[in-house]
């Protein structure tokens, strides 16, 4: 007979909540000796939360999830929350042992033997592991990572003042430390990526606001990592070399606070017999729907189970004790999923459905089942029905519940019900979400050399990865096939997943490569025949300005631009002459493979770029297929040779091209360009813009660079991967299917997009007063007339609403297209896309 029915290890939020539930169950069952024990290694509860900064605002994310626990938790300060917990512990009389660190667990379900560090032994039938992830902090991984002033946690930010401090990391703790430290220090936060996709909404808002606020002593380096840290003999104590997209930079500072997350106490967990799905350091153990690990009787909850938030940990603690007691209650996020899955043609439980779904999608199979659950919660589920009675029934079911919930003031996300044959997205549309097929079929329709090409995708396959990774418009049309069920996951969730899950990242990378190869070399080849080949082809990253190959090099491979842009240049009479500019989706370097094997030009990355490299062997394998697109490839090469030859004899044209690329056309999809030889300066373009956009003009004709009479006014470029979009907390910046990047009313005026736009085309402004009617202007001289500029004073209502971001939306809502272009009397103002850049340059050279 074991000492306890349940031993709960770790008194974090998960363990506490579990213990509270067990205690209450004991009380209900009127058991005199506790059936459980809570073992905590520290001297008080919740060491992880104790370690937060003093006064930290603890968030109760995710907002849409209800708390289910016998312990109180809501948004509040750290001290307050710890107070509630410690108090509740005593009030309930929870059977907790402090300073009881567990060192080993042996035995099996029904008779586990728990060894404590202090030598004691305890036996239990079941074990709940809630030891969190705080085991060991992840180190910088560079020389100097163990220097004195390089620290991996921060007890009290107030302890430092007027220091230069580098905070490394992009997660919540890095953000919180950086914010607190910046109150009395100069803080630089180093983010390895170019956005804070791992952060919680609330923190994201705070950091972005702080970065953009000039009054704050906080700055951010994006896409930057530390290369080395050394000790200085004088001046600031640390000397840091950082890798940035613009090259290496150095910096002297007082201190580095690295918050790179933690490595799970994996050895300990594995010693119990628990298996991890992969060798990767941050892999998460595989769990059943009831949080049971592969070792029967050992349950894992909280952050160790891959759930990073307190509320989730607490809900799981509660649920798991119920499960162990045989009450298979539904998890707290159950209703959310229920609504999302309601429109599906299955009469199954949510959990069962999820399990099935996950089993059906190979790429997600290795995901922790709870992480998968989270993915589904953030996605839209699309269900396609044959257009008949069933469809109507499904629609009716959804609408009835939705209106009922809305009446209760809730705004649920429901299944998106569509008809078979409906277009999920169309070719040429802009969109960045990612689609996974759970069931049924989806047809991708493409056009190659005038021929219709239809590919049918089935269960477990996915699509849309090309736009997700490159920012390019959709290259194909996706049509709902028979009885399809598709999960549409937004870009931000996908990025988060790819950043934290190598399997998903490599899975998506791989299919991207395979489809690119298919597109370029053998569009009619069945995808499966290219799969192995795809696995042999790699992707390489280049920083802006980096050389991919040099003119005269021996060629061994060709490249496909995956994202960013590439410049090809050539030496002509000792001068570096640009011959071509390539954007994502384009092939380069193939000429050498098809010709004499010598590079005829130098390739450099115009902006940070990723390229797919196809080696000679793979290339030969591709072109030797009998469905290879040899003729097309050869034609492309000849055309490129001609283009390049034409460009290289015109160094002046190359100069203009380079000017255009430098000013954003390298990533633009739609840009306003004014021909100075035609512009009479009447400003009708600006007037038209203001008149069609609530009185606020979004372009500044006079500012912006000019070369060879080509003027690029300050107006949105509608970038391929809009910089403005990446850190908008309320996701207020959207991209229309037709490509226009525009800002919706959801804007909270944080000013991030203004900061992030490299072309300075966004500004924050109050709403302009309404224009008077034409008559009252004419007759009574009220306000300003049509086209008249107004230096306005915002009214009270506008002030109460606050400033919002305004920028060119390419007249997404104006009939007839961009008002600026239509209003130009001389034809000087044109909006052009990448396809016209060469024509623009050539037109200039006559």
């Amino acid at each position, binding site marked *: 007979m074991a000492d306890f029915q349940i031993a709960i290890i770790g008194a974090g939020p998960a363990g506490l909540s579990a213990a509270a539930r067990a205690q209450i169950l004991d009380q209900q069952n009127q058991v005199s000796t506790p059936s459980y024990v809570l073992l905590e290694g520290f001297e008080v509860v919740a060491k992880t939360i104790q370690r937060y900064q003093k006064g930290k605002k603890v968030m109760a994310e995710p907002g849409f999830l209800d708390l289910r626990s016998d312990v109180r938790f809501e948004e509040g300060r750290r001290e307050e929350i710890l107070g509630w917990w410690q108090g509740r512990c005593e009030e309930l009389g929870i059977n907790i042992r402090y300073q009881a660190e567990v060192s080993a667990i042996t035995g099996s379900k029904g008779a586990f033997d728990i060894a404590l560090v202090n030598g004691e032994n305890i036996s239990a039938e079941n074990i709940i592991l809630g030891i969190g992830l705080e085991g060991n902090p992840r180190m910088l991984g560079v020389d100097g990572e163990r220097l004195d002033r390089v620290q991996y946690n921060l007890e009290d930010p107030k302890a430092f003042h007027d220091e230069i401090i580098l905070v490394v990391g992009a997660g919540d703790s890095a953000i919180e430390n950086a914010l607190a430290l910046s109150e009395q220090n100069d803080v630089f936060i180093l983010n390895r990526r170019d956005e804070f996709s791992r952060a919680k909404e609330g923190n994201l808002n705070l950091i972005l606001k702080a970065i953009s606020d000039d009054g704050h002593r906080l700055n951010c380096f994006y896409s930057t990592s530390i290369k080395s840290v050394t000790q200085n003999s004088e001046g600031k104590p640390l000397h840091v070399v950082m890798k940035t997209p613009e090259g290496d930079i150095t910096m002297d500072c007082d201190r580095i606070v690295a918050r790179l997350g933690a490595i799970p106490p994996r050895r300990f967990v594995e010693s119990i017999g628990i298996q991890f799905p992969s060798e990767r350091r941050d892999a998460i153990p595989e769990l059943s729907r009831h949080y049971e690990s592969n070792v029967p009787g050992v349950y894992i909850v909280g952050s160790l189970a891959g759930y990073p938030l307190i509320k989730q940990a607490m809900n799981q603690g509660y649920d798991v004790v119920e499960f162990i007691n045989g009450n298979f209650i539904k998890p707290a996020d159950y209703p959310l999923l229920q609504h999302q899955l309601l429109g599906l043609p299955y009469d199954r439980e949510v959990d069962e459905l999820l399990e099935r779904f996950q089993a059906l999608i190979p790429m997600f199979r290795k995901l922790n089942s709870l992480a998968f659950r989270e993915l589904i919660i953030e996605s839209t589920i699309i269900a396609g029905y044959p257009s008949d009675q069933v469809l109507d029934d499904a629609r009716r079911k959804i609408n009835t519940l939705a209106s009922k919930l809305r009446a209760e003031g809730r705004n649920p996300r429901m299944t998106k019900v569509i008809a078979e044959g409906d277009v999920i997205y169309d070719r040429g549309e802009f969109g960045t979400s990612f689609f996974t097929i759970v069931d049924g079929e989806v047809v991708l329709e493409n056009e190659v050399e005038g021929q219709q090409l239809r590919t049918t995708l089935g269960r477990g396959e996915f699509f849309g990865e090309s736009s997700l990774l490159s920012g390019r418009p959709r290259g194909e049309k996706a049509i709902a096939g028979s009885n399809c069920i598709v999960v549409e996951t937004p870009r931000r969730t996908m990025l988060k997943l790819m950043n934290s899950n190598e399997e998903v990242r490599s899975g998506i990378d791989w299919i991207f490569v395979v489809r690119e190869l298919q597109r370029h070399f053998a569009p009619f080849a069945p995808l499966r025949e290219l799969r192995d080949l795809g696995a042999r082809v790699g992707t390489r990253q280049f920083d802006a300005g980096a050389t991919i190959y040099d003119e005269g090099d021996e060629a061994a491979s060709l490249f496909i631009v995956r994202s960013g842009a590439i410049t090809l240049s050539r030496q002509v009479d000792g001068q570096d002459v640009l011959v071509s500019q390539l954007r994502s989706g384009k092939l380069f370097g193939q000429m050498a493979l098809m010709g004499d094997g010598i590079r005829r030009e130098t390739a450099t990355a115009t902006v940070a770029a990723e390229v797919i490299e196809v080696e000679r062997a793979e290339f030969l394998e591709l072109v030797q297929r009998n469905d290879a697109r040899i003729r097309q490839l050869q034609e492309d090469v000849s055309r490129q040779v001609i283009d390049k030859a034409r460009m290289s004899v015109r160094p002046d044209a190359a100069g203009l091209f380079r000017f255009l690329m430098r000013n954003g056309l390298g990533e633009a999809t739609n840009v306003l360009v004014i021909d100075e030889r035609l512009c009479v300066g009447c400003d009708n373009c600006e007037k038209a813009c203001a008149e069609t956009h609530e009185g606020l003009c979004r372009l500044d004709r006079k500012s912006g660079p000019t070369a060879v009479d080509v003027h690029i006014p300050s107006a949105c470029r509608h970038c391929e991967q809009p910089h403005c979009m990446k850190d908008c907390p309320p996701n207020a910046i959207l991209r229309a299917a037709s490509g226009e990047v525009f800002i919706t009313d959801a804007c909270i005026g944080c000013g991030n997009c203004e900061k992030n736009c490299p072309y300075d085309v966004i500004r924050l402004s109050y709403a302009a007063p309404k224009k008077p009617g034409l008559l009252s202007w004419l007759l009574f001289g009220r306000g300003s007339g049509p086209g008249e500029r107004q230096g306005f004073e915002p009214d009270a209502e506008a002030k109460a609403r606050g400033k919002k971001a305004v920028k060119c939306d390419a007249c997404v809502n*104006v009939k007839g297209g961009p008002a600026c272009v239509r*209003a130009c009397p*001389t*034809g000087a103002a044109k909006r052009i896309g990448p396809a016209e850049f060469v024509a623009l340059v050539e037109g200039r050279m006559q």
Partner: protein
Amino acid sequence: MIYRNVMRYAGGRYLWVALLLVASSFVLYFSQGGVQPPNGGTWQGYVLGTVAALLIVWLAWLGIRKRRYAGGSGTVQGWTSAHIYLGTAVLLLATLHCALQFGWNVHTLSYVLMCGVIFSGFYGLYQYLTQPQLLARNRAGEARAGLFAELYDMDGEARRLAARCSPAVGLAVKSGVERTMLGGGMGAQLLQRDGSRFMQAGSGEAAATLLPNADQQPLVDFVAARIPRAAKRSEARNLQDLLAILVRRQSLLRQLRRDIALQGWLRVWLYVHVPMTIALIVALIVHIVTTFIYW
């Protein structure tokens, strides 16, 4: 071809429309004959007159279309292109309509006003086709605001350097900067007249005098003249630095003045074209009404 000027809009589509119109007007004109000599009173004359009058109304409508930013058909460039060709055609149509019968009356007044509008239009078109290049070349890739910003810097720099020089130079430069004139009335803007002044200290008891400083040359000469007479090396160096700034400032001012003038010429003709259009329409109404009354 991405950019085409108004003349070449849509491959000169409206040129052909206008030519067709003119050709058929000539046919119509020469079909007059017999008892009456060609004039406004024949049915052909009426047709020509009506078409010309309708065209004039449509031409004037450009002013409205140009301000219909959200709606409106076609592009303003297309409208302008048609405006130019059909406006020119109106000259011929109206001439054929009146068959060159002029007198001191409201009918001829309409004709004269129309000619005024049309010839001012020609002038405007000439401006539209030629000035933008000059403007762009003059600004050399800078925005006007950029030129002003640089001028502002130069002003500060000149003041700073002048403060290190002798009081006479200091006064001259400081006053020269303060009394630099740009723009002014319309005439001054268009003709690039420069009423700048600077103040020269009097010798001994004599009061300071304000001297003209057109194009900044007098001030430049004044400072340049001091350089050989500088007592100290350091003074000579300061003066030379100052001179360099003043010369740069001078060229900036020239650039700005020319920019303002060119912009002005691009606009000023409309102050003739538009009011005359209004007068023309009034005269036209009177012309038509009287024609019917005194039939």
